[in-house]
């Protein structure tokens, strides 16, 4: 939910000396992404995507570095990043399993599927396994209603996933 206020007052930022937005990544973004837009701020979503792609999530220090890179206030970067569900402001598992729960998927048996995956992994939706391997989430419509139920595992969409064949999506993961 995009509009839930997230209390960050008093939060301390963990810092490391090595930057998240590396000089190599900066150079790539400056060459490929920034020229596409008339303002630097417009590059924010692509830059957030790029940094998250490298580090798997967006630590607060990374948001500060992105703010400096795009001449924005860190609060502006946080404002945008916290709005979108795909941007992770907390660590997530190596494999993010998003099970679609919208209407076509629910009609075709998503509820049973989610329960089975949840029991198999031993976590409820919204949680990550203690070994940091899997994070289970529910998602709203993934645009695959004709092959419902469906689930997105990291960047790969799995279609026609049923309670009796769901293990195949886990078998493909290391």
């Amino acid at each position, binding site marked *: *939910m*995009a*509009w839930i206020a997230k209390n960050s007052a008093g939060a301390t930022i963990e810092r490391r000396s090595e930057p998240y937005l590396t000089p190599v990544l900066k150079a790539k973004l400056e060459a490929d992404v920034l020229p*596409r837009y*008339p*303002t630097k*701020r*417009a*590059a*924010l*979503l*692509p830059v*957030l*995507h790029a940094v998250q792609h490298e580090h798997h999530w967006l630590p607060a220090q990374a948001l500060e570095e992105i703010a400096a890179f*795009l001449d924005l206030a860190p609060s502006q970067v946080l*404002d*945008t990043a916290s*709005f*979108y*569900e*795909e*941007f992770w402001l907390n660590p997530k598992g190596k494999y993010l399993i*998003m099970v679609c*729960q*919208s*209407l*076509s998927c*629910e*009609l*075709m048996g998503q509820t049973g599927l989610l329960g089975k995956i949840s029991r198999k992994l031993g976590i409820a939706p919204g949680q990550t396994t203690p070994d940091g391997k899997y994070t289970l989430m529910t*998602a*709203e*419509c*993934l*645009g*695959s*209603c*004709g*092959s*419902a139920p469906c689930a*997105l595992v990291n*960047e*790969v*969409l799995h279609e026609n996933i049923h309670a009796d064949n769901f293990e195949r999506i886990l078998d493909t993961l290391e």
Partner: protein
Amino acid sequence: MPLAQPVLCKRIPTYPWGDPKDRQYVGYDQFTATGGYVGLTKALAMAPKAVIDLVKEAELRGRGGAGFPAGLKWSFLPPEDGQRRYLAVNADESEPGTFKDRLLIDFDPHLLLEGIAIAMHACRLDTAYIYIRGEYHAQAKTLQRAIDEAYAHKIFGEGSRLGQINALWPNCYVHRGAGAYICGEETGLLESLEGKRGWPRIKPPFPAVAGAFARPTIINNVETLAMVGPLLDQGPTWFKSLGKGRPDGVPASVPASFGPKLYGISGHVNRPGVYEENLGIKLSTLIEDHAAGMLKGKKFKAAIPGGISMGVLGPDEYHAELDFDIGRKHNCLGLGTAGVIVMDQDTDMVAVARNIARFFAHESCGQCTPCREGTGWMYKVLTRVEAGGGTLDDLDLLLEVSASMGAMPGTTICGLADGANWAVRTIVNKFWPEFEARVAQTRSNRVSLAVVGATH
């Protein structure tokens, strides 16, 4: 009359013309070898304004949900002032039940790029951003592959066949969203494109005057633009021979439903998928002929005509014609995206309403109080009704809340809450006995505004 030849699915095998198993990516060479970019060639031989007039004459209506005439939208742009103007392509397909744009992007992305190039020429737009939803990872890569081919063949970039526009060589970029339904609302999309949260803007100013980066901007859906190439190639007379025209005697000022349309069908049917048909096809035909009938031979109970925000059709509306007039004729919001969700006799309509209310409660951007609170409370009330703890008061309350939030009652900036309230209202009204049977037959002394009609 069924569509004789596929138009948008010309290169995408689809029943009854081909087998979806044979679908594969159509690259630049195969696209041009099968009549692709002919529409662009014809458009480039015409003055920009003549292209807009042609699209206007064809009465091509937007395929993204609202059905607004595309040519008219294009003609709203102010005169050129030498500064930049943008095209924002809405590929944020997020409405539950909708998966048609994905088909075009997966298999025939050049059809979209051709439409983009024509729109840029006609409207004098120098830069196009294809705003694609974040979850479409594979589709974003496919689009980029097609765009790279288009640059290599001088559709876009330096030396483009379009020539310079606003003193710039035309560019086309993919811009990925990040998981927010509201970014499919056109001004939410623009905010997101500018690197902000996807909060819809108060209009006016309309995007044609001050859109992306406060410059004139056209926003079109993927399918609308994909239709522009074939339209330029074969002309308005051909286009208007397809779909459903105006009945005799109806003045030309009344918009009709010309042309073919992609219908996505999902839910309790044997062969779900995307089909191309003339606008005006009957729901029963789509289910029986295209989708090979109801799953397990069960009886039809209800269907969503075009994405969950459009409301619901009941058992007696099985033969409803799926065109832009459906809202007026069948008491729903409209055709929407033509993403049809079919439900069989065993479907629990209370659960359906709860699912839909949860979607909107989850996706409300939170800007307007009636929507943020209203969708959340509708979800809570429906959850209680589903669990068996509801009363008649709850049903009154649902109708009252749904009648008082949205852009139509005038209490919100955008139409998200209208989608939520039409869905809930039509389901509760059309399946009232089912809801009534689920709740305790008690009413407090509280008088609902919905019952006395004060909010209508």
